[in-house]
């Protein structure tokens, strides 16, 4: 019906599986009503999920585009829409629209580069899409290092996939860390920014970073100390959005709209923009 065709009007989609990742993060598997993947995307792009009557919010698509069957969203329980999502069961319908944003330059700037992924907490969600895309097209990229930290072992998102797949793959090195020691953890303990400095990575790498603003800030400072330039560092932002189309007027950082010009930015671009994120 033509009168339904507006970018603000969502489609109906189905949640087919819900995985509990951590005490406050669940990963939702979503397909269209025809059972197929509802949209194609670029790693780093986002989509609007909603439940009518509850609200609509933007989430990064955590599954890789190379996954042909469904989309996945890893979502932390922290507000109105996410509380509702955490209470549902498979078989629940939701609405979906997108994909939105620019995504990471996986087929251009990243090609041939040694990649260093740095994530904190739920910040792994958008990077998982890139990591699995890079793993799928392994020959196109150089070495892959992944530094991932969370408050505790239980707060590491996608822990099983990390252990079973990422850690066992040639050319992929995973560096996990948690904030405080705990009995069943023999890995690194400490905050992500310090760990990155300790690991003293080769400065030829391209960095892909996502996490809480405070982690981004201190990690960037550490990277610069190691000799990295800002134009080697990519990150992805998240601000309040209503339309995701560059029109509702609230997700801008200076003259850039996170929904449309981002969410992925290279950090040298951010130097020309206000610190309002």
């Amino acid at each position, binding site marked *: 019906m033509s009168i339904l065709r507006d970018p603000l009007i969502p489609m109906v989609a189905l949640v087919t599986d819900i995985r509990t990742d951590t005490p406050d993060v669940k990963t939702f598997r979503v397909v269209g009503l025809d059972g197929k993947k509802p949209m194609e995307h670029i790693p780093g792009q986002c989509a609007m999920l909603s439940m009518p009557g509850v609200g609509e919010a933007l989430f990064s698509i955590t599954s890789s585009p190379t996954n042909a069957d469904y989309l996945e969203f890893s979502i932390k329980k922290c507000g109105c829409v996410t509380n509702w999502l955490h209470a549902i069961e498979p078989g629940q*319908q939701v609405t979906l629209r997108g994909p939105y944003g620019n995504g990471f330059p996986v087929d251009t700037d990243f090609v041939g580069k040694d990649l260093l992924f740095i994530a904190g907490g739920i910040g792994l969600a958008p990077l998982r899409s890139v990591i699995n895309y890079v793993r799928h097209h392994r020959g196109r990229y150089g070495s892959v290092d992944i530094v991932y930290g969370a408050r505790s072992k239980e707060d590491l998102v996608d822990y099983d996939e990390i252990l079973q797949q990422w850690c066992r793959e040639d050319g992929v090195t995973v560096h996990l860390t948690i904030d405080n020691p705990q009995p069943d953890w023999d890995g690194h303990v400490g905050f992500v920014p310090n760990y990155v400095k300790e690991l003293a990575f080769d400065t030829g790498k391209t960095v892909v970073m996502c996490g809480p603003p405070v982690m981004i800030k201190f990690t960037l400072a550490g990277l610069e100390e190691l000799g990295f330039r800002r134009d080697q560092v990519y990150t992805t932002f998240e601000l309040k959005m209503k339309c995701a189309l560059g029109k509702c007027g609230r997700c801008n950082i200076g003259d850039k709209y996170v929904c449309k010009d981002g969410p992925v930015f290279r950090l040298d671009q951010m130097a020309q923009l206000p610190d309002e994120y």
Partner: protein
Amino acid sequence: MKTWKLSELDSLFAAIAAAQKLYIPADAAGQPAFTLWTPGLSMTKALNTGRSAKDLFFPQVENLVNFKVSGRRIQVEPGREEVEDFVIFGVRACDCRSFDILDSVFLSDPVDTFYADRRSHATVMTLACSEPEETCFCTSLGIDPQAPAGDVSCWAMEDTLYLEANTEKGQALLSSLPQLGQGEKPQTDASVFHRLPLKDLDFSVFGEKPLMDWFNSPVWDSLSQSCLGCGSCTFVCPTCQCYDVEDFDGGATIRRFRCWDSCMYSDFTMMAHGTNRPTQKERFRQRFMHKLVYHPNNHAGQIGCVGCGRCLQKCPISMNIVKVAKALKEGKA
């Protein structure tokens, strides 16, 4: 040029309204407003309406879509209002320019079909100004109040309304009014506009320095200090276009609607983990940076202000874009 007797304006309105809906600026409850014409309704004597003409393309509240939810199932149902052809008469040059600015936002990819629908169904008849208010400064923004754009431009001079079509749509409208006369419009007198106190504002400076120079200006603290965050300025502004999307659960049907929002409000950018514009200073700065720097940066230098002066009249603490632009330029408040 086509003509009509001003004393018989009512019959012109009747002729237009015979074919499509007609909105004219009329005295309504509290303040002049664009009002659906019905027999007997006459034009306001006021220069302009309290709220701008943007309401007719971007209404304050508008239904987007409806949902029906049963158990775990969701049904999407059409919820948008069908738009019919309509005419707006008496739009001033400033408000007419605001449509260009709104077009830059809503008609850029991806097109907002709700706005586009109304734009394509509308015929805009503008009305030239001859007696501006002291708060008018459209000429500072390159607008000629005596030569307004629109589908049809009109001039009310002495006892005659002169009408000139600028577009095919305007031509079609005038052709549908066979009783129009023919005449030459007398010369307009611009002298009153040259005496306006705000005629010499300079908005060109904002493109001359990097965004961060304006953002980091020392003037924001003092300018924003007394801002109440009431949002009156955004409410009356013809170019403010920020909106909210909300759901109303009416039981059987859930309506998803959008409504005007304001960057001046504390919850505008509030997220589950907090807001990135925590004080009124950031919110105030956002509004003026958007009009003077961000919007022009994204739209070929187009300033997000039309000089209508409504915010000068309505702000309860007498803060406005004129004071902000002057202070920014001088670097002191």
